[in-house]
């Protein structure tokens, strides 16, 4: 598999007066409620372990209060963890000095915010060049480089507007351009599109995906919206009460939700549009039918198969037969989610 870019290991965050002394209690199994009632401390993150692959979009999703915004702020240390480690490119960012940390933030990890966080007193072009100017790059060059990013997020012509003169969607394009302009390999996106209305949000997702096709950044994307998570995420981690309860690809989570919470979470989504026919692939010789590529989603596969009148389809990859899927399996897959306690399921 691909290389690990960011590795979060045994990360704990406890808010309160004496968080260090509480870590042992939490590790020993004290519940969030007990911690709050008996010791007045709030459990923010509980033993979070996530390996984020290079050039992937890692979505971290959870409802409000699940600790997802806290988690993403640990990656550039806007929040200090109570225990654990965060390794980026084989370097523990928790051991960095303030100066090293500033350099890390300037050149390695940039961030896009839910509320945009634009500088209201600066024009679009100045906002986009903000990170570059902080790095100490001279103004003409910074502005020149920013212009390219403004163009790539589709904001040409608005360079000299102030943020307040733009709509929410356009403001977030500025935020995105600002984050991309620093050329950091890691892009942290904290509910970046949550404040936008649905159509604009979908637009922005497309903008992000098409940029990612060219740029291949390591993106950590926080959201509470499952559709968004499924659309963007190469990998998804579901966070609840500060703990990761399930992680893996979208297919894996949909096919094998680990518990009732996740099942509940995914019950309203259109599985046919997310799952690929490959995910229910078997190898039965009696199945005959049209050949479909392994990337085809069930929604399309069902159409092809039912048109052909066969009992299934052959899945191919680069023209090579990989296996077969039956019509019934595909229907079963989108009909309901099975419960499965085995988190390392076979599907990858």
């Amino acid at each position, binding site marked *: 598999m691909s290389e690990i870019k960011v590795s979060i290991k045994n990360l704990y965050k406890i808010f309160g007066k004496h968080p260090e002394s509480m870590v042992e209690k939490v590790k020993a199994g004290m519940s969030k409620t007990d911690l709050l009632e008996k010791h007045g401390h709030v459990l923010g993150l509980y033993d979070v372990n996530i390996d984020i692959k290079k050039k992937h979009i890692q979505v971290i999703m959870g409802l409000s209060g699940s600790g997802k915004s806290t988690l993403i702020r640990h990656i550039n240390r806007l929040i200090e963890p109570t225990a654990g480690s965060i390794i980026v490119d084989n370097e523990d960012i928790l051991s960095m000095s303030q100066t090293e940390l500033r350099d890390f*933030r300037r050149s390695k990890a940039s961030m896009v915010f839910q509320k945009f966080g634009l500088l209201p007193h600066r024009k679009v072009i100045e906002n986009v060049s903000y990170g570059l100017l902080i790095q100490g790059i001279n103004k003409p060059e910074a502005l020149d480089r920013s212009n390219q990013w403004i163009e790539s997020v589709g904001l040409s012509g608005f360079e000299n507007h102030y943020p307040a003169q733009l709509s929410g969607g356009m403001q977030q394009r500025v935020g995105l351009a600002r984050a991309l302009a620093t050329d950091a390999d890691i892009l*942290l996106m904290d509910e970046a599109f949550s404040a936008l209305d649905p159509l604009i949000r979908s637009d922005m997702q497309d903008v992000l995906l098409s940029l990612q096709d060219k740029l291949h950044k390591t993106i950590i994307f926080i959201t509470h919206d499952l559709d968004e998570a499924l659309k963007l995420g190469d990998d998804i981690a579901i966070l609840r009460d500060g703990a990761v309860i399930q992680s893996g690809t979208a297919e894996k989570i949909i096919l094998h939700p680990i518990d009732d919470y996740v099942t509940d979470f995914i019950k309203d989504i259109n599985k046919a549009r997310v799952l690929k026919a490959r995910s229910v692939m078997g190898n039965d010789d009696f199945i005959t039918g049209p050949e479909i590529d392994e990337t085809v989603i069930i929604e399309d596969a069902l159409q092809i198969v039912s048109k052909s009148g066969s009992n299934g389809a052959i899945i191919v990859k680069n023209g090579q037969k990989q296996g077969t899927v039956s019509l019934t399996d595909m229907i079963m897959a989108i009909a309901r989610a099975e419960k499965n306690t085995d988190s390392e399921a076979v599907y990858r």
Partner: protein
Amino acid sequence: MSLLTEFPKMGRTDLRDFKKGIDESFRNFTREYGEAIENFFDPLLYFLVWLEKLFLNTPWPIILFVIATLVYLGSSSIKLTLGAILAFLTIGYLDMWDDTMATLAIISVATIVCISIGIPLGILMARSQRTQMIITPILDVMQTIPSFVYLIPVVMLLGIGKVPGLLAVCIYAIPPIVRLTNLGIRLVDKDVMEASEAFGANYRQKLIGVQIPLALPNIFAGVNQTIMMALSMVVIASMIGVKGLGVPVLRAISNQYLALGIMNGLAIVVLAILFDRVSQQFGRRLQAHTESSK
């Protein structure tokens, strides 16, 4: 039983000695360091005298022109500019020109002093909770203590004259600029600050690039308040030897000259209104670009 009816107090001799002791030690301090402190303020005195002379010796049409230009640049309002010209013509016609110039000089110097001390102090105060905890009560004292009370040590130390007057004005006028600078910086949008932090800005970059520009409307309100309070100290300052519109007011009080008092009082009011309107307009223009103007 007498403990209940009579408040337990310090013995009369002890109390007298206590007060005497404080007076004595301050007097000693004055004798020891008075001259050094006076010398320390000399540059300020020279500047004040120079400015006053400049205002007084420059032909009045030039002054009027400069004032009108400044008002227009600050407010970009023709109406206000014409009002200012008219006000100053009236002041001159009623023989208050020289006093007004003297007042203008001391207010200008006091404002410059207050800004150059107050804004850094406000920034320091915004930086940590502890400095805020220390400075806030000091500002409270400065604002509420009757001005005559701090005139005593100031006069003991520096005698009667322009510098002690200026000091008295500054003590009274500096709190708003400090407070509003602190407040302005603390009120800067947390999200913007976080973004700046996330892009690796250091303290200076955050302060100059984000906090001060965004706090500017509040800082300007502070400057405005400081000027207003400095003007309101003009009469008290004139008691310890500051020239200007306060002197005739003082004379009017002791001799019951109604017209003289009202005229000079109104001249102070006119100055105050002008300063206020111009600085407010200017402050408003500073933040105009952040408003939506589709």
